[in-house]
């Protein structure tokens, strides 16, 4: 494998604690090495440029059934925006829901090398893996959803922690999944009857268990197993005025629980797209920002991490396993609505949405997302996402960087709002002058998410031994720049290396890389009861046989298995 030496760049790396100093980065055999370990490297002159590790996205909807519904039912999302095939690049289409090919290339262009699919319905795991297989360059993993799964509901109703854990281990193996995802716990099962669970004590129809029990139980099971990532939750009551109390109640379920994981993470709960969960008021007329209350809690509890779910003010496509929410949304905007309830497991919905700067609520949502990041005391625990494509397409990350790094750019956006004054009254953002630096950005987009995923030993930094994932951006932080220069530079990496392979050279994609699929293989003690329960449910209630359920290896042509031993 070729050796590379990236010389004289301004390096931003939270792992090594380098804050923009000039430094060299060496790559050999796919890994980062000491600069003296490379003999005859290809030298990349990064003089006057910014060097960072490859980006890590902790939460993005890029592969699987609901993503493909979003593609197939929105031809208008591709009209006039298609990119012809060119050299090694295959044709690429879609704005808010790009094809798998465009997904890989567009993340790479932003300097990202690892992207986690945030919600995988177990019964559709095979589909999710087929799409990840056809997504070039990126290392990926997918989170199977557990929060409305009948096995989980029944075990946790009787506080059967070990059985819950054994089932989680079995399902992660069967679906080749990476982490425990929870979406609107209990609410999506309720939606199978057209109902919902609007707070954490709202009982789940028939199953006689509350969202609070489900969440607490899954955190404990997750720590019982010591999985790389923590329980990853999208709480109840998403997107409703006044929902911040539900969010705080959900946070509190993690209190007193310590991480039991060998993978170096500090949190036991990752709460995703918190922007959608930080609303005050009791109607869309008086909705306001409660980012302060939310961040006060997050800042003072270090066993929690969150991501933003930043609204980008685009026309986009919302998609979530939160079935009742999507139905609620289509009732609001009257646009096409797809729904897919999945037997014994979960559900999902998809609805297009236009975040317009002329609509007060959209502008308030924009403020709230930025407030979460700007009020963060520890950027290692607050990550940049758009909950792609829910709050906006991931290709806007560089624009979000601009907003976070430049108060001037935020002022410009405020001035573009139709209801500027009302928006300012309902939010805190106008009063925040903080401007993040690239070191903090690197924490929020690299080191932080890598650590939270339990992957700090592979990603997120430039320390020797880590994966050779390095991005070089045509951006000089020490010279004056306009806000838009940030967006421009970080939208279009000059060089990108992924596992030591050069993917982008002089802004041009030169390789489709060597993508890997990460999954977690957990050893647990024999549990005959769980295996009996599994057999019984497949015989009586599933419509596929048990032997046709497990995802076989060849769907993961290049797997990376993380072994966990939970037998002690």
């Amino acid at each position: 494998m070729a050796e590379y030496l990236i010389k004289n760049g301004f390096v931003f790396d939270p792992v090594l604690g380098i804050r923009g100093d000039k430094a060299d980065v060496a790559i050999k055999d796919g890994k980062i090495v000491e600069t003296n370990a490379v003999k005859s490297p290809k030298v990349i002159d990064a003089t006057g440029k910014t060097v960072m590790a490859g980006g890590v996205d902790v939460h993005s909807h890029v592969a699987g059934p609901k993503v493909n519904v979003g593609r197939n039912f929105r031809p208008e999302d591709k009209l006039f925006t298609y990119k012809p095939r060119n050299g090694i690049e295959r044709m690429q289409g879609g704005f808010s829901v790009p094809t798998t090919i465009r997904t890989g290339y567009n993340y790479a262009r932003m300097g990202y090398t690892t992207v986690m699919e945030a919600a995988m319905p177990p019964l559709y795991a095979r589909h999710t893996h087929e799409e990840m297989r056809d997504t070039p360059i990126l290392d990926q993993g997918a989170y199977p959803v557990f929060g409305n799964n009948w096995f989980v509901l029944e075990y946790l109703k009787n506080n059967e922690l070990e059985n819950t854990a054994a089932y989680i281990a079995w399902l992660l193996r069967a679906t080749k999944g990476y982490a425990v995802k929870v979406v609107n716990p209990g609410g999506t099962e309720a939606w199978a009857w057209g109902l919902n669970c609007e707070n954490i004590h709202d009982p789940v129809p028939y199953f006689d268990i509350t969202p609070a029990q489900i969440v607490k139980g899954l955190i404990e099971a997750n720590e019982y197993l010591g999985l790389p990532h923590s329980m990853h939750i999208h709480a109840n009551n998403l997107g409703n005025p006044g929902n911040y109390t539900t969010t705080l109640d959900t946070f509190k379920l993690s209190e007193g629980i310590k991480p039991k994981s060998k993978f170096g993470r500090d949190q036991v709960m990752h709460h995703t797209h918190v922007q959608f969960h930080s609303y005050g008021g009791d109607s869309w007329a008086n909705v306001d920002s409660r980012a302060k209350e939310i961040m006060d809690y997050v800042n003072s509890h270090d066993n929690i991490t969150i991501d933003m779910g930043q609204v980008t003010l685009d026309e986009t496509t919302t998609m979530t396993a939160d079935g009742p929410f999507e139905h609620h949304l289509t009732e609001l905007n009257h646009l096409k609505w797809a729904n897919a309830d999945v037997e014994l497991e979960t559900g999902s919905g998809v609805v297009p949405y236009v975040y317009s700067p002329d609509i007060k609520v959209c502008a308030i949502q924009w403020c709230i997302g930025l407030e979460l990041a700007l009020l963060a005391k520890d950027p290692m625990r607050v990550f940049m996402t758009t909950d792609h494509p829910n709050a906006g397409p991931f290709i806007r990350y560089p624009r979000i960087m601009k907003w976070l790094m430049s108060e001037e750019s935020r002022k410009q956006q405020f001035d573009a709002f139709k209801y500027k004054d009302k928006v300012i009254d309902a939010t805190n953002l106008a009063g925040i002058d903080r401007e993040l630096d690239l070191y903090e950005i690197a924490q929020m987009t690299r080191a932080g998410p890598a650590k939270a995923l339990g992957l700090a030993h592979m990603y997120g930094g430039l320390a020797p031994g880590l994966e050779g994932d390095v991005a070089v951006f045509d951006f000089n932080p020490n010279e004056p720049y306009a806000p838009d220069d940030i967006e421009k530079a970080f939208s279009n990496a000059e060089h990108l290396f992924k596992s030591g392979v050069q993917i982008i050279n002089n802004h041009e994609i030169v390789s489709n890389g060597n993508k890997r699929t990460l999954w977690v293989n957990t050893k647990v003690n024999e549990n005959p009861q769980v295996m009996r329960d599994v057999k019984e449910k497949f015989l009586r209630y599933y419509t596929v046989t048990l032997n046709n359920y497990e995802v076989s290896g060849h769907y993961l042509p290049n797997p990376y298995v993380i072994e966990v031993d939970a037998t002690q």
Partner: protein
Amino acid sequence: METVTLTIKNQPELYLEAETISPDALAGKKVEEILGLPVYVGREQHRLGDYFDVSGKPGATPAETKIVLNGDLSRVKYIGTKMTDGEIVVNGDADMYVGAWMQGGKITVNGNVNAFAGTGMKGGELIIKGNAGNYLGAAYRGDWRGMQGGKITVTGNAGSDVGTFMNGGEIVIGGDVDVHVGTHAEGGKIVIKGNAKSRLGGQMVEGEIYVFGKIDVMLPGFVYREDVDIEVDGVKGRFALYEGDIGERHRKRKGQTIYGKLYQRIEA
């Protein structure tokens, strides 16, 4: 206004995709440059000059440019697509997408057009002296933003799916129309001077449809309200007013539910 004349000299083996035939693409160009503009037959790219003789010259801007097309253009697609200003006159039949996504200016076709004319039209004027195909002034697949503005006038008949997802603007059909008119419409005005078949205003939220002739089958979702004397496109008459689609969602204004309106002329 300057006039540039394109006369087709070779018929394409398959079909010719010529979105470049628009004042926006031709304005300010020399004849040599126009001859070199790209057109497509399947995956093959050709020069406009391979298929057309070009005479005269365009104006400096689209607004000052008139394009006259002569010969059999029934295998040429995308004439006037996305045009913003200026004028196109087609002396003959044209294929699909005439004036699709048009924003301004004027297109006159002295002949028939195939399907998808005026798709997603935002503004301008599209005049068809012959017959129009299916999906006249309709939305592109999946888009809830169909025709938003401008005017389409057809002297002859139109096919099925006129004005699907129409939000604004006006469509006037001199003759008859096939099934499905103004489906999912949320605004705009459709005038049919001949006869209609069935499925008028299906799933219509708002907007107006006027029919001078017969309607084979009225949808159950449309209910008779009253007779009204009105003037439509210069014609005074008594019309029976139906409202619908009753089963569809409807906005309220000042406590009043707003329905789609379907007017059928009462033979005097």
